[in-house]
């Protein structure tokens, strides 16, 4: 494929990607979160149609207008979020969508036999084709997904982080199968954050950054790690962050001690002083969001304590956290933060309803005045307090969520991906706003998958990998390479 461009309304997810994959090779895709890997896969799988650029398949230009078109060509995709139907059996899932073409009739026994053969080929004959997928473990689901890709007689199989849910033994099984199918001439596009794996299984590497190909066709075995990381991080555009004043020494406002949740993360301890920004860096799945949601009581901690100003906050209770002065701007703005059909005013007052309650009656004038003031001071555009929150852009929606906690007057603010889906202009406004809050003595915790953002905003940084803290240190003593290094080493461990 050459010069593929994919634009979504308002953003360019892919801005020129070149990639060539040869028969029988394992081509690895590297790139940070948001580099455009997932979009690229979806273009190849026919989910998205590119706006520009061409895709050639065996020398001929093709249009992949829908997933079936890609499948017919022989492109099979294993998505990161497993796309299996839980209520159907293993065999039914494997042949879902192409039952008829293979059998004329969907004969269960034939399908089951064929499924069993595929599973055996994958070295997992212990998975019964008749069992319901919903009852299987994540790793087994991955195998079923793999079997599904094989059943398509694909010439190209795209694997999006297939090893994320597998243990070491299962990974080596997976690699065995990959070698087997590539020997038969099948090409594999393999995506992983784990450099070790890429070294072991990959033939060539393409690095994506900011939706573009940085370099393609590097040798997977011999290219030095430092060079790969440099390609992933080297930036064409610089961030501008507000200056970070020194935080005066003093008692911490938020103290997190030994926080853990079974299966999600463990041993997270840190504290934040008033006016300080502490950043949590880590890849998707490192437990970042889980940590802040647990501090906020939205998930119940199995171990450890959260203390605000010397007082322990009751675990697992959002109202307790809110009344202790903690606020959270969650990762998923639309599904977790906003009541999209409701007005800006009612979204802003949502956490402070008690303040506007006069014997249960709502003080709507007070509510509207406060909302108006906040919208103005945060420069939310367009402003109208009665406007539905769904009509705002991402950056302005984020300001509305911030306004909610400003109104509440919280002292500890947890920001999970505060600038995801926020355009360039609004980003710097949000950065400035965070600085304004710390000037007022608010303690801020920032989670972001964009490492420069974490480094630029924070006084201190915690690097999370493999669901625990791998490093803690001053932000100005770290750079993006160093953080990535810690993350990748942690993941390989």
């Amino acid at each position, binding site marked *: 494929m050459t010069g593929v461009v994919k634009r979504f309304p308002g953003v360019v997810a892919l801005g020129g990607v070149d990639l060539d994959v040869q028969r029988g090779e394992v081509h690895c895709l590297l790139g940070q979160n948001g580099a455009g890997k997932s979009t690229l896969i979806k273009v190849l799988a026919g989910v998205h149609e590119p706006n520009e650029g061409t895709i050639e398949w065996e020398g001929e230009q093709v249009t992949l207008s829908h997933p079936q078109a890609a499948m017919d060509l022989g492109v099979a995709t294993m998505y990161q979020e497993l796309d299996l139907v839980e209520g159907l059996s293993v065999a039914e899932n494997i042949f879902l969508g192409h039952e008829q073409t293979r059998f004329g009739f969907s004969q269960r026994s034939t399908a089951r036999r064929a499924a069993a053969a595929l599973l055996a080929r994958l070295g997992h004959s212990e998975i019964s084709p008749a069992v319901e997928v919903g009852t299987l473990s994540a790793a087994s689901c991955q195998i079923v997904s793999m079997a599904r890709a094989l059943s398509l007689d694909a010439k190209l199989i795209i694997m999006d982080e297939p090893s994320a849910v597998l243990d070491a033994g299962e990974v080596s099984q997976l690699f065995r199968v990959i070698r087997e199918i590539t020997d038969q001439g099948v090409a594999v596009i393999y995506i992983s954050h784990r450099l070790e794996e890429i070294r072991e299984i990959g033939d060539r590497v393409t690095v994506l950054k900011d939706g573009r190909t940085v370099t393609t066709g590097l040798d997977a075995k011999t290219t030095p790690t430092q060079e790969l990381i440099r390609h992933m991080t080297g930036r064409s555009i610089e961030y501008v962050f507000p200056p970070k004043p020194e935080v005066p020494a003093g008692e911490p406002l938020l103290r997190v001690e030994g926080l853990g949740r079974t299966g999600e993360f463990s041993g997270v301890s840190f504290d934040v002083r008033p006016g300080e920004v502490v950043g949590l860096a880590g890849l998707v799945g490192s437990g970042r969001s889980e940590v802040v949601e647990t501090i906020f009581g939205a998930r119940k901690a199995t171990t450890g304590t959260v203390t605000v100003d010397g007082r322990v906050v009751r675990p697992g209770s959002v109202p307790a956290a809110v009344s202790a002065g903690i606020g959270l701007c969650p990762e998923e703005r639309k599904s977790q933060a906003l009541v999209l059909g409701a007005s800006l005013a009612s979204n802003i007052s949502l956490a402070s309803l008690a303040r506007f309650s006069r014997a249960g009656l709502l003080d709507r004038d007070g509510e509207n005045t406060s909302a108006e003031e906040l919208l103005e001071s945060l420069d939310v555009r367009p402003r109208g307090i009665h406007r539905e929150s769904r009509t705002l*852009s991402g950056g302005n929606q984020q300001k509305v969520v911030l306004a909610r906690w400003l109104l509440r007057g919280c002292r500890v603010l947890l920001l999970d991906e505060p600038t995801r889906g926020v355009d*360039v202009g609004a980003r710097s406004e949000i950065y400035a706003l965070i600085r304004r809050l710390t000037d007022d003595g608010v303690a801020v915790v920032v989670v972001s998958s964009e490492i420069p953002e974490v480094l630029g905003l924070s006084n201190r940084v915690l690097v999370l990998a493999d669901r625990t803290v791998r490093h803690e240190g001053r932000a100005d003593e770290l750079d993006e390479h160093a953080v990535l290094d810690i993350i990748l080493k942690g993941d390989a461990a």
Partner: protein
Amino acid sequence: MSADVTKAEPPSGDPGTDRTGAVDPVAQQGPPVGGMPSRQGGLAGFLSGPLGRNAGLVVALVLLIIVGIITAGDRFASPENALTILRLGSVIGVVSVGMTFVICGGGIDLSVGAIVALSSVWATTVATQTLAADFHWIVMVFAALAVGGVCGLVNGVLIAYGRIAPFIATLAMLAAARGLAEIIAKRRTQIIRDRDFINFFGGSVLGIPVLVILFAIVAVVGWVLLNRTTFGRRTLAIGGNPEAARLAGIRVQRQTMYLYILLGVACGIAAVMIMARTTTGTSTHGTLYELDAIAAVVIGGTLLSGGRGTVVGTVLGVLIFTTLTNVFTLNNLDTSTQAVAKGAIIVAAVLLQQRVSRTRST
């Protein structure tokens, strides 16, 4: 490398602060949508406004009234008949106002008819009536409200804390409450002997039946509660986005439970009203109320998915259905034809609602 296409603006995933390339946030969000109804233009835009949607219902009601006058003449267009319509609509109206809250909060309650039956039976047992005779008929009222409230509490606890789907939990209550009512009444109709009770609720004040006044009070209280209190705001929040409400510190489970209790109490009030109208308590009271109430709420313009609701719309929905029944009865058309017409109205209303919400979300 394809240098020719790499000059596009930065993607969302990796920001820059290239100020010259910075885009005005307002300009970036595409065509303005939502907010004021005026900008949508056309019929759908008008109807999506709060006034517009109710205006649509008023038009429907006026059309029905015109049909009534044409087909039944003076038998329809008389003050007595108007009061009859209101009296008939008042019982289901009280239930529907309560149902508006549950649906706004993202739930559904199929057990309202059964709760009305159980409340009416419990409030008219020999034991209750004896106590009422010794003390005051208010005992019967309290009994009905308490039974309704407790049934609502059970629904609410099962749904909010037991995490049972509202449809299932209230379906179970529908079966159980109706069954319990039959057991208590031994499938017999219990006659109310207290004349004062019947005279009070069956009477009129300034020519307006007490039942209608009760309905009006419930509707006004309901409107204030939904639109002017923090309770109402929390209800709309948990219906609109329960996760966002939870992460804003609202006790979603508790609020959910309150909504079912509120509806249960409304069923208790409805039970008192139907007891007064029929002078009986029986396990067949309130049959199919759940469907009538849900239908009235939905054609009133409350979103079945929750988060948006209107008490005024619900009242208009009740009046439309009751007037429809009245017109059909006056024209000697059977109930089967009525049912078909009702079905058609519900489908039309929901189709309109979907059009409106699609206009909103695009």
